[in-house]
């Protein structure tokens, strides 16, 4: 611990704490631009200069470690002059004319810094050098004229996301932000996670979809979770007048720590499916708009006359509350099967294994944060569960090993320490042999490599990595069809425990674990006379949707028009994920709360409300209490 005095206030801080962070702990405000709490200090902009007693010159507080007895001043005439000078230099470098910039008026850290120093004009004139604008990316515009060269985006791309797309070329005034050695951003290795947008202090990185839609002071912010995949990343949803403006990662979220992927940040902005706004009932072979009362009446007749020949199918993108009510409704009419829309055998194999074991066998997402070896199997998590891939990729520069076992190319190809292209049908056998190599060294690397037609050098390095690592995480991508997924899950589990690794599977949709806990089985073709479908806002693949088209009649709760609503007999419009409250259980057993950020269109109810309306119309009593049900469930991962 060291004692430091800043502006006459003294505090004791840990060794290595920067003067800037010590000042923050004391509540002393030091302006910054290149510094960002989530990123390594860089010391580039010089706005955070402070006076240190005994030092010859002003010192940047963001990179200066506090030392014992240090006396610092942050509020002297000399410092304000220095700040104004630093800001004048930055303003003179490129085109910083405020009136046409989307972040002007509160959202620009550069403008705010100038206001804080009461700057009314620029003492130094700009040099009028035009820079290019890169608008090649579908979501991000790179406006080099507004760049202050702070490198926050570069650090975020490398340190947080591990993608290393962004970098700098040239020196001095010619310094330019570049993607991959100078490619247009849209053609580069960028994975469109948008973290760079979120850290840019000026209007240099422009979010195409939210620019000029409202400043941060004009919008409402709702803290909720992303429903894009099973991770459940924490997000801030920015809305204005019941319109979606932007989605940002929540830095305080313990699961995702502020990171998001393209699916979470941008896809909701470009939702193009047609919304269903009124209940529909089929008459004379055609779907016609109806009132809720008429539609409920028609549905009541249909369900009552089904005489037990009905099935229930629900999306795993809807909340535990809605699923519980839906199950209750299906149970009351002795539904033959109650299924989810999840079409991956591997997901159900995970749950089957858990119910056999009757004990959790998987680790937590937080295990990824400090592991030193990652082994990926199955699906390409750089596409489907991107944030997990960021956690692994960003550890590589620190020496972590990334072993990928995949039949085909994946997004990890440029990052993996070793890539083993093993045929999927022999994956389970291969894991057994790999385990032998690591555990008892019974087989020779050469023999195994030959058996699976892989390079023996790669295999040897894989074995070495596994033997030398302290914390290994086996990431099992379960959103993929394997020949015999049960055998593979068993083999992966056995392999993980034999080499003392932590296993984590990606499971299905956001509420995959929740649906399994409530007793929903995985999907199959349905042939009953009547099928009740709680689709929510899920978009099913054509081949999954076909499984439900053979049923006699169909009552569908859905937000959007789809193949399944087209042939339905009765449709109830329901709200989408941004418009409802509820709980879900994510990939690693966290019970997360979803909060509504938007109001649903008039006459559209949440999944839970809509199911309850039908329940009441059918006089179904009782309730499935989800938090009780999940206590009885043998989960693959500890639920808390």
């Amino acid at each position: 611990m060291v004692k430091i005095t800043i502006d006459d206030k003294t505090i004791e801080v840990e060794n290595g704490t920067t003067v800037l962070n010590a000042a923050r702990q004391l509540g002393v405000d030091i302006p910054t631009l290149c510094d960002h709490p989530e990123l390594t200090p860089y010391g580039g902009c010089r706005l955070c200069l402070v006076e240190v007693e005994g030092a010859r010159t002003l010192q940047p507080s963001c990179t200066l470690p506090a030392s014992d007895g240090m006396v610092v001043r942050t509020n002297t005439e000399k410092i304000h002059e220095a700040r104004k000078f630093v800001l004048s230099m930055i303003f003179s470098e490129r085109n910083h004319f405020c009136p046409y910039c989307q972040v002007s008026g509160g959202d620009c850290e550069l403008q705010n810094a100038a206001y804080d120093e009461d700057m009314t004009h620029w003492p130094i004139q700009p040099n009028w050098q035009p820079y290019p604008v890169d608008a090649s990316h579908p979501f991000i515009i790179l406006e080099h004229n507004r760049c202050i060269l702070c490198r926050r985006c570069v650090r975020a791309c490398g340190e947080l996301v591990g993608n290393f797309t962004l970098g700098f070329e040239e020196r001095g005034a010619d310094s330019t932000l570049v993607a991959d050695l100078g490619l247009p951003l849209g053609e580069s290795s960028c994975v469109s996670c948008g973290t760079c947008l979120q850290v840019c202090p000026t209007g240099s990185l422009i979010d195409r979809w939210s620019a000029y839609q409202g400043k941060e002071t004009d919008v409402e912010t709702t803290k909720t979770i992303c429903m894009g995949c099973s991770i459940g990343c924490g997000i801030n949803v920015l809305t204005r007048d019941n319109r979606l403006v932007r989605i940002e990662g929540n830095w305080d979220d313990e699961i995702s720590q502020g990171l998001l992927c393209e699916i979470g940040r941008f896809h909701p902005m470009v939702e193009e499916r047609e919304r269903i706004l009124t209940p529909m009932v089929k008459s004379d072979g055609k779907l016609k708009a109806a009132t809720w009362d008429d539609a409920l009446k028609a549905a009541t007749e249909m369900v009552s006359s089904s005489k037990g020949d009905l099935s229930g199918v629900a999306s795993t993108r809807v909340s535990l509350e809605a699923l519980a009510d839906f199950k209750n409704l299906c149970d009351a009419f002795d539904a033959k099967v109650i299924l989810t829309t999840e079409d991956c055998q591997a997901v159900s194999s995970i749950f089957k294994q858990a119910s056999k074991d009757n004990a959790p066998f998987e680790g937590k997402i937080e295990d990824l944060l400090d592991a030193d070896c990652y082994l990926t199997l199955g699906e390409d998590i750089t596409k489907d569960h991107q944030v997990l891939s960021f956690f692994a990729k960003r550890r590589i520069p620190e020496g972590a090993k990334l072993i990928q076992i995949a039949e085909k190319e994946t997004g990890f190809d440029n990052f993996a320490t070793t890539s083993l292209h093993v045929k999927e049908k022999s994956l389970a056998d291969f894991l057994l042999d790999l385990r032998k190599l690591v555990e008892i060294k019974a087989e020779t690397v050469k023999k195994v490599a030959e058996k699976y037609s892989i390079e023996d050098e790669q295999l040897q390095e894989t074995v070495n990595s596994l033997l030398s690592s302290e914390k290994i995480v086996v990431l099992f991508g379960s959103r993929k069809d394997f020949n015999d997924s049960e055998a593979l899950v068993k083999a992966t589990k056995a392999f993980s425990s034999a080499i003392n690794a932590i296993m984590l599977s990606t499971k299905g949709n956001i509420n995959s674990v929740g649906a399994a806990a409530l007793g929903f089985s995985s999907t199959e073709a349905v042939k009953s006379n009547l099928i009740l479908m709680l689709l929510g806002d899920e978009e099913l693949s054509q081949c999954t949707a076909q499984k439900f088209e053979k049923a006699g009649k169909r009552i569908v709760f859905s937000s959007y028009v789809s193949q399944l609503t087209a042939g339905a007999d009765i449709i109830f419009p329901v709200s989408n994920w941004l418009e409802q409250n509820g709980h879900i259980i994510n990939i690693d057993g966290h019970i997360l709360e979803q909060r509504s950020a938007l109001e649903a269109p008039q006459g559209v109810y949440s999944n839970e409300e809509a199911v309850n309306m039908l329940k009441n119309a059918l006089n179904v009593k009782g309730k499935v209490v989800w938090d009780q049900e999940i206590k009885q469930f043998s989960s693959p991962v500890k639920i808390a």
Partner: protein
Amino acid sequence: MAKPTVASDWLGGCAGCHMSFLDIDERIVKLVELVDLRATPITDLKEPDEKGVTVGILEGGITNTYNEEVAKRMRDRCQILVALGDCAVFGGVPAMRNFFTLNDALTRAYVDTPSTDESGKIPSNPELAKMTVVRPVHEIVPVDVFIPGCPPDADIIFYALTELAQGRIPKLENNNLMWN
């Protein structure tokens, strides 16, 4: 004591700052109680009195040799010079042409615009002022008060003028400091 006198003029701008000044609405009555409003582009008297005024206000940036003359004349004839609006303070929208060559900007304006027919040509009358690099007023003459904004809010203009009318130099800070 005589009321302080105020004169204004516009240079390379859009007149929007003067419009924003008029947006002080009925408060203009209060203002003329405090000051003697002399030459402005929207009054009959166009040039500031030769014997001088207390406060001179300039809207717009310096875009040509004529603007330079007007700015210098105002500086000579006033005690306190105010740069009003982003163009006068920073160069503003007209300064965007500095990122191109003068010839490119003129060709764009007089020849290449879709509404221009073949007869379009860059004006070359020798009596026209010579265009220059666009600069803020303080690059030509010393400025005493900067009021940024595109345009500055009427409330900010009213605040600044009433301060000046009462013999104080306005300090623009917090909500009164706006560059956009």
